[in-house]
């Protein structure tokens, strides 16, 4: 009986794992090989050993992009998770027109990057400054996207606006696993509101919290679309994310080899971050 279970699991795992290795791991290894060359993306190339990796650590532009990306990711992750959780609770509570609200809040996620870019550019360039000067806020009277110190805030807003939908969906499906009777039992003990959430609901949706954290890290550390739509790395190269550099200089530019090295290092960094995160929330799960 035990063996049967084991065999079944192996028979499931191995073919799917093989597929994954074939179309993810093998191309990745090929990519890693390019990171030791000065390949431009076409034509012939030379082996350069670790030159790309050494360059990487002395490249101020790459360093700056790491700082920017992490700043963006941390702020957006917190913002998105707080709002998404609130939204999920609200959408899951007893409200009128539930389907309508759920549909409406999903919309930001499906508007294409061109549309989002145009509308938010317009909003930040014309509408927000006009409104701000009308009510007399000096600091907002010029576009926040044109100032190297504040452009990242604009990107956080758009990233959050788009990402909240997805995180909310995951929280909502998490809330479905919380049985009604938990609340009923809690209600008898007098746990309501924040207390109910803190002690009854939240512990039960921790797995979804950690999923959302990992997905946030993935989406925000690898942010690309929103940058292309809003600032294209500007002003004054203040919003160049790591993925932006990898794509723009590696794919469109002639730095394929160098940016492959960047991608390899970035991959390792991001895996470390998320493994640490999963370990952390895994411990939390055990505690509760």
């Amino acid at each position, binding site marked *: 009986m035990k063996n049967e279970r084991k065999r*079944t699991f192996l*028979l*499931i795992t191995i073919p799917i794992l093989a597929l994954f290795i074939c179309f993810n791991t093998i191309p990745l290894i090929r990519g890693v090989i390019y990171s030791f060359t000065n390949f431009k993306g*076409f034509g012939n190339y030379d082996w350069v050993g670790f030159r790309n990796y050494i360059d990487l650590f002395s490249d101020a532009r790459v360093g700056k992009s790491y700082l920017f990306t992490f700043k963006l990711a941390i702020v957006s992750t917190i913002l998105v998770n707080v709002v998404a959780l609130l939204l999920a609770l609200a959408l899951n509570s007893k409200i009128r027109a539930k389907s309508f609200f759920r549909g409406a809040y999903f919309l930001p996620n499906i508007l294409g990057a061109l549309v989002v870019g145009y509308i938010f550019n317009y909003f930040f360039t014309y509408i927000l400054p006009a409104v701000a000067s009308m009510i007399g806020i000096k600091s907002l009277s010029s576009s926040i996207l044109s100032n190297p110190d504040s452009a990242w805030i604009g990107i956080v807003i758009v990233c959050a606006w788009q990402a909240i939908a997805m995180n909310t969906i995951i929280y909502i499906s998490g809330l479905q696993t919380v049985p009604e009777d938990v609340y009923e039992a809690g209600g008898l003990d007098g746990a309501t509101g924040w207390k109910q959430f803190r002690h009854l609901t939240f512990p039960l949706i921790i797995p979804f919290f950690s999923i959302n954290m990992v997905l946030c890290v993935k989406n925000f550390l690898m942010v690309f679309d929103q940058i292309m739509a809003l600032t294209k*790395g*500007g002003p004054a190269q203040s919003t160049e994310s790591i993925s932006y550099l990898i794509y723009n200089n590696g794919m469109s530019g*002639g730095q394929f080899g160098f940016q492959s090295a960047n991608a390899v290092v970035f991959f390792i960094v991001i895996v470390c971050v998320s493994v640490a995160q999963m370990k952390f929330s895994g411990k939390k799960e055990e505690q509760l």
Partner: protein
Amino acid sequence: MKGKRMKYLGLALCCMTAALAMQGCGNSADQKVEIEIVQYKPEAAIYFETVEEEFNATHDDIQLKISSPNDAMTILRTRFIREDYPDIIGIGGDINYSYFVDAGILADVSEYKGLQTINPGYLDIAEALELVPTDGSYIVPYVANAAGVLYNRDLFAEHGWQIPETWQEMVTLCEEIKGEGILPFYFGFKDTWTCLAPWNAMAVELSPSDTTKQVNRGETSFTKEYKELSEKYLQLLPYGPDDPFAYGYNDACTAFARGEAAMYPIGSYATPQILSVNPDLNIDSFVMPASDDKDGRTLNSGIDLGFCVTADCKNKEAAYEVLDFLLADENLQKYIDAQNAVPCKTGDFKLSSMLDGMLSFIEAGNMTDYQDHYYPSEMAVDAQLQTFLLQKDVNAFLSKFDTDWQRYNRDIIRMVQEYEKEHGNEKE
């Protein structure tokens, strides 16, 4: 049981894969020679569709297929890595062309007779783009674009403003326009690439056309060659909108179309976008003066679209026949009409009225290529320019330019220096 199921699933997958693979290499029994063109200007797609139709209607032996995809560079690179080369590629004369020549992707077309009809100015520009001089020619220049200053003709006529011919006149004109409460320039510096337009337009007059090559040979530095250019660029800023970094290319086009500014320093390629907003706008252009030497002016013009035959092309004769067709006067004229382009071919062509102010330069063959056609895109000179315009620090900008140049062009510089060692300076 589930083991079997898995096996069947695997088998089915394999079969499907195999079937699809087979499908890939069927049909080619046709006797016709197929010529495939991939060209990188999607805005000209309609023109190329008509060309394709007309060509196929008149040629029985050759089947022409032209695609004008968006993001053609990614598509081309993808196909190159698959070793699936189109017969002809239509690209611009920029650093990508230089790389493609260097990579041996393109075939030598110096035997092609059509080359003799091309304006020698553009052939020289093409030659200069080669990283190290070669014996062959690798591109047939088709059309060029020109960058300078677009101006609102009606506004100029109304106020009696004259086209400036020297830097001093330019500054005086700007003051005059500003004095009348009109914005002299509109800038869309939020889109970094637009920062390059005034830069290129002034650079052709203020710096040697082969500045980058001189630097590669170690003969000079950008700090030296670009100093005046950078300082003059800064002087233009007060004549633009308050916060030019808030507006993108599209905003600038719309603003200029709505008459919010008298001039817009950008290339002729912007006119369709401007006219889409305001079809009645009367636009003309002039060559940007950058020094006080009236005769030192030269038109900033480069190869916007040229055709290269790939080294992989099986039937060069057929490819040349296609090129002949494309270069036929009536077809080229159609392209010029549709895109406000400048022909690279010599002959009697009717140019758009928006190029009136540049006509004398074009006819005299007085043109110089864009400096940015030599900049590697990954160095992001456009973004560096934007930073410079924000921070207004000439020295910091130029010294970064110099150090970054060495870094991003390391392999090219080594190649150039090796070439110099081998060949000496015989070409100079």
